[in-house]
């Protein structure tokens, strides 16, 4: 049915998923740093974080990706030339995951900031008053609640980012979409392969939603559910 190209496409799924999960890790780091900067007392840090989230969210992902890919390449080669390393080729995987992480870090900044703010100060004070150490307060009081508040935003960002990984094919990463293009060219059946790619994305999205809903339920135990309309 797929002219024997199914294993190749599924191997592309592996690339897509690793791009998505590495990007998620990078985005979480950027998001956490951004949230801490936005909540910090320093106006400089707050300013930098605000510029970061505003500019990144005002530009198309694809443009940012091309800027990092080509701009990074030129910058890196200028440095390499000065140091006498010779020509350096920027890795498409690194460029792709770095850009996706950088872009979605800006969105996660808002998610994490909201999650930190949603924890009542009194609970943290109460924790200290009960004799918990700083680390215990973070581990037993802040983190479990932060996860609960951050999960809906996190789920959304993961789903949007998963779909954004399709863009890495444009900068030459050998992901599912790129392989669908190769298989189409070889078999002259582009609909079959692009539709297959779409269905695989849909399956991954569905699984993600199911898993993240289960996690959210796990962390919302003991919280009264508001009446849903």
């Amino acid at each position, binding site marked *: 049915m797929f002219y024997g190209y199914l294993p190749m496409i599924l191997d592309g799924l592996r690339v897509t998923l690793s791009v998505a999960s590495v990007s998620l890790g990078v985005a979480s780091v950027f998001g956490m740093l951004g949230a801490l900067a936005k909540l910090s007392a320093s106006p400089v840090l707050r300013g930098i974080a605000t510029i970061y989230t505003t500019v990144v969210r005002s530009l198309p992902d694809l443009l940012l990706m091309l800027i990092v890919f080509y701009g990074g390449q030129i910058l890196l080669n200028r440095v390499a030339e000065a140091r006498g390393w010779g020509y350096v080729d920027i890795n498409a995987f690194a460029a792709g995951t770095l850009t996706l992480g950088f872009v979605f870090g800006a969105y996660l900044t808002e998610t994490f900031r909201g999650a930190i703010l949603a924890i009542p100060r009194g609970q943290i004070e109460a924790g200290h008053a009960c004799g918990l150490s700083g680390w215990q307060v973070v581990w037993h009081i802040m983190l479990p609640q932060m996860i609960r508040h951050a999960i809906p935003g996190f789920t959304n960002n993961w789903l949007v980012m998963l*779909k954004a*990984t*399709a863009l890495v094919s444009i900068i030459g990463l050998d992901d599912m979409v790129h392989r669908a293009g190769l298989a189409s060219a070889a078999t002259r059946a582009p609909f079959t392969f692009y*539709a297959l790619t779409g269905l695989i*994305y849909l399956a991954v999205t569905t699984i993600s939603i199911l898993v993240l809903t289960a996690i959210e339920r796990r962390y919302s135990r003991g919280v009264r559910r508001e009446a849903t309309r």
Partner: protein
Amino acid sequence: MINWSIVIETLPAFWHGLQITLLLLVISISSGLLLSIPLSVARASANPWIRTPVWLYTYVIRGTPLLVQLFVLYYGLPQFDSVRESALWPLFRSPWFCAWLAFTLNTTAYTTEMFAGAIRSTPAGEIEAARAMGLTRFQVFRDVFWPGAWRRALPQYGNEVVQMMHATALASTVTIVEILRVARDVYTNYLVVPESFGMAAVLYLMLTVILTQGFRLLERHYLRHLDPKASRTQAPPKGKQHIADA
């Protein structure tokens, strides 16, 4: 740092690209808005036979990347002889038609869900009151239901329009020469980043600012009743106190 002669030389191309980007945005957003109004009503319907097909459509579209949707339409459909031999072939052969169709299908799915959420949160009392006053079903929809739902959905809708503007950059992958395609061509010709992608970034930033400010004005107009400052009434003058008491 910046080679201004390249900037001046490529300015006409960027100007043209900007117009193409705006054109793509306007045609997709307007058809998406028109389609999503009836679809959102269907999506919020109590009848599962009406609700479920619309849900399936939005679920599939929202669960797949726009790039893949665009490729399925533009590169994929010509696989079928029936498409190539049909009367619609001149349309499906055109990148413009495919980009418009893909963007419209995409934005319609997101907007439908947004409006359906706003419709579901309509207080039942508003509808009952309107029906009790003898308004017809259509009048209820036009004068009571929709204005409220539109107001509730407006802030989100503004975000969707900005995201759609960013999504038009994908049209560069199907040979449409919009801002990003111009930037990529400038990069290929001169191998410079600030004058190519930097210039595109400036243009997208400008468009984003204009769109968000425009929606802020719309929100100020439509959501005036939620602005505490606007609802502040002046204290009645002393002499006319009895009118307020009456």
